[in-house]
């Protein structure tokens, strides 16, 4: 979450609760609702690393609140994050290991493993379809995120099909 918070602070200085609200506003239901405690812990670490700094702002009748802003080093870290390509998703490692290792031990055969995995993926796809219906189409980040997840899932299913084809002589 470090870089997400840096990106929001690059837009404007903010205190912890404002950052939580900004995340919710930007991503809507697409983002796992951020925990305020986790945000404060992350801000503390960013401050310790010199990427952000805090100023105390006095409030009447309440304790001071800390408003955070980006430092030059924070700006550099953010630029580096934006400029580098992001790691692509990997093959479902755990299922792949099962597929290769389980038959060796005689615990299960590959056809059974693949069939079970396909049913699971199709169930997930159904959930994503329901989610599309339940999501406000105006929430573009959420819609794009769901569509991305569907495309990944379709690719996983196509790959399962390849594995299955490979089993037939």
């Amino acid at each position: 979450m470090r870089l997400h918070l840096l990106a929001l602070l690059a837009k404007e200085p903010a205190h912890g609760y404002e950052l939580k609200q900004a995340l919710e506003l930007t991503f809507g239901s697409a983002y796992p609702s951020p925990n305020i405690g986790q945000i404060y812990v992350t801000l503390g670490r960013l401050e310790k690393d010199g990427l952000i700094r805090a100023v105390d702002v006095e409030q009447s009748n309440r304790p001071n609140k800390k408003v955070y802003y980006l430092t030059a080093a924070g700006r550099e870290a953010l630029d580096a994050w934006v400029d580098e390509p992001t790691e692509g998703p990997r093959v479902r490692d755990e299922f792949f290991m099962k597929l290769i290792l389980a038959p060796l031990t005689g615990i299960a055969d590959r056809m059974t493993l693949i069939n079970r995995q396909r049913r699971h993926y199709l169930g997930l796809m159904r959930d994503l379809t329901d989610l599309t219906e339940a999501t406000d189409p105006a929430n573009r980040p959420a819609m794009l995120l769901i569509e991305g997840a569907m495309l990944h899932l379709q690719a996983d299913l196509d790959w399962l099909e390849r594995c299955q084809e490979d089993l037939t002589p």
Partner: protein
Amino acid sequence: MQSGAVVRTVNLVKIYQTGGLPVPAVRGVDLEVADGEFVAIMGPSGSGKSTLIHMIGGLDTRTSGEIWLDGQRADTLSESGWAVLRREKVGFVFQFFNLVATMTVADNVELPALLGGASARQARERREYLLGELGLTERAEAAPAQLSGGEQQRVALARALANQPRLLLADEPTGNLDSRNGRDVLRLLRDIHEKGQTIIVVTHDAKVAGMADRVVMLLDGQIVDDGRSVRRTSSKRPGGAGDVIELRG
């Protein structure tokens, strides 16, 4: 035959003779589809899934085995007998819509009902109902070529449903559509299924297959899996995308 089954195949086989060399496409398929069921057939290309659905719809002949439609033995029928049965019992949707280019949308949808013996008034009423349900009322007088791919597929679906068929067969219905149009067709399939329509769909599209009650996997002309998909989240806890999709923080 068991009551309630709309389709039943028994040891169904299709062997193509290409250049003297027999090529088995379907190798002994036993499939039973109950009334109101939505079944998706998946499998790699060449696995026999299109051949299977074509045989069930009477568009291709079987080499051996039995096909029963709505309690009636179908594979032993003459070509004209099949044509009558198909007209009465089966609606078909294809990947490339196959609409009659020189007829309006309205006429495309009315044609099967008229061929099926409905009066002009009945055919018109059914057409108006279907186009209304599919959000196409305003496109009734358009030619198919004036419609988007998604609209054409909706018209094809309306045409397939014109005779209130016992069975709807669809071969890659979203295969030629972008994601938005695919979503419309998907929604329609779900809606008519909820109203009790029996559906068999051949598809590569996991969104369509995920919607089905049951998924049959074909490999090399044989069924290697037949079962229900497993829902992870319960319907009473819908949640947001964040609950289904894990963003790396």
